[in-house]
């Protein structure tokens, strides 16, 4: 059994210029990423008949919505048979999974999926200002947290991390080893934002944001866009890259969409998404060659590690003690590009991009040396989670 009857594949990926306060708009960046992805697949824009994005035109702080599907359709004059965006979906890749279903069911042939952010430029006056000045009153999902000073996901996710540390003895030093390894990988990625080596002292002594999270546990607002071409398998023959199969995908959320009511505070929606994914594939966690795991906060990567089953529930601390488990030359390299923590907050799509370029062996200096066929991609945090197994035999 495979996802959407094995009819959807990835044929190309592309990224725009990535950086801090580079002064370009989110639309400009999305157009550049789209051009590169379409060319990378060996297609032209005349071949693109579907488009999907996250999150769509939602009210959000500065630069969070870099470009909508309408923006990109209009700019390039695309003639699409299918288009969608949405934020009420399974993590930032939710609509990419919908694109796979769309090509599998014949509603489109080649779908341009993208995510664009220009938060670094748009929030030049400060993230606190961006988070707290968008409206006079805290409504919607903010109503029951922001009035108490819990303005940031650092506060909400910090509470989850604290409870996990309390229950299982995870330490800041163990989290730090993951963060430092991520930075070490970023040094090999010319597009990563932070590439200087980080020591444990650097990590532990960094300014505290919301305990247990210090500065280096939090990703950094970035400017950049990522595009991924999802194609119907029959239409992928003869294109520029061998087709990458979406072997399995998980989108489940079995509890309320909430940041504080989940029954077990030491798990997240990632546990639901991965559980639903593993039910649909012959592969197991032991078959995975490497993983790209959402690390908008360091702890979210820890949740994905145990959600996929790379470590037992509660045992991620000991897993992190042994770098051979996750370093670039190790058993299961994690985030070879530097994750969002060091490569920039491209908001989910960066993990899909990295999984694909590694499978295609196009990752340059950071290419994983061993043969890689099966990648685990986990995207999202808290009540948001979507995951995939990408396979290139």
């Amino acid at each position, binding site marked *: 059994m495979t996802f959407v009857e094995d009819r959807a594949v990835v044929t190309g990926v592309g990224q725009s210029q990535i950086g801090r306060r580079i002064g370009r708009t989110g639309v400009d960046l999305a157009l550049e990423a789209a051009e590169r992805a379409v060319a990378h697949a060996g297609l032209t824009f005349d071949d693109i008949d579907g488009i999907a994005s996250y999150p769509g035109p939602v009210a959000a702080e500065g630069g969070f919505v870099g470009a909508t599907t309408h923006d990109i359709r209009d700019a390039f004059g695309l003639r699409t048979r299918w288009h969608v965006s949405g934020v009420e979906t399974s993590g930032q890749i939710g609509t990419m999974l919908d694109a796979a279903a769309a090509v599998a069911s014949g509603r489109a042939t080649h779908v341009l999926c993208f995510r664009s952010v220009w938060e670094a430029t748009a929030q030049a006056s400060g993230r606190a200002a961006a988070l707290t000045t968008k409206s006079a*009153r805290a409504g919607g999902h903010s*109503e029951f947290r922001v009035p108490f*000073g819990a303005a940031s996901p650092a506060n909400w996710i*910090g509470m989850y991390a604290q409870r996990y540390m309390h229950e299982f003895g995870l330490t800041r030093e163990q989290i730090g080893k993951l963060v430092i390894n991520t930075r070490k990988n970023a040094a090999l990625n010319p597009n990563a934002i932070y590439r200087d080596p980080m020591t444990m002292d650097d990590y532990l002594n960094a*300014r505290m*944001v919301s*305990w247990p999270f210090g500065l280096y546990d939090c990703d950094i607002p970035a400017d950049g866009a990522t595009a991924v071409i999802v194609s119907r398998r029959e239409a992928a023959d003869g294109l520029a890259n061998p087709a990458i199969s979406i072997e399995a995908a998980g989108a489940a959320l079995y509890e309320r969409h909430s940041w504080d009511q989940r029954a077990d505070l030491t798990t997240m929606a990632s546990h639901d998404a991965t559980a639903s994914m593993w039910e649909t594939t012959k592969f197991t966690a032991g078959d995975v060659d490497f993983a790209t795991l959402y690390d908008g906060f360091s702890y979210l990567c820890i949740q994905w590690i145990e959600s996929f089953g790379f470590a037992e529930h509660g045992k991620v601390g000991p897993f992190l003690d042994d770098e051979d488990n996750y370093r670039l030359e190790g058993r299961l390299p994690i985030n070879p590009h530097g994750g969002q923590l060091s490569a920039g907050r491209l908001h989910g799509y960066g993990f899909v991009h990295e999984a694909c370029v590694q499978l295609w062996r196009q990752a340059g200096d950071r290419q994983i040396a061993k043969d890689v066929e099966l990648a685990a991609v986990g995207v999202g945090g808290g009540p948001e989670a979507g995951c995939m197994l990408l396979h290139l035999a």
Partner: protein
Amino acid sequence: MAQPEGRMLPEVTPDSREFWTGGFENELRIYRCQACRQWIHPPVGACWKCRSRDVAPEVASGRATVAAYSINHHPWFPAFPPPYAVAAVELDEAPGVRLTTCLVDVDIAAVEVGMPVEVVFDEQDDVALPLFRPVTA
């Protein structure tokens, strides 16, 4: 409605009005299913557990325990000078039903999971925010 300096007050909705205003009468009002007696938060017009539409605010004791916390060090709002403790507290009546809140009158170095706390209301404009402080014997 005037916005007090340096903070964001909640946008009060028909579902949340009792929660945000009960404190003016020193009551912590939490929705409760009248069919299966499940406590529900945030307030909404149905019980997620049994799907009854017969839900209504009831007065909770205001006693709770800290389920998780994060010590915030970033100055998000002038009205919340860091450091301060953001916490998810579980109602004594309903373990698992949590309020995200801010702990007050507390030594932040002493905050721990399982710490007993009680509600104290912070009246701001048209709302009374349920904050929590340690229970002193």
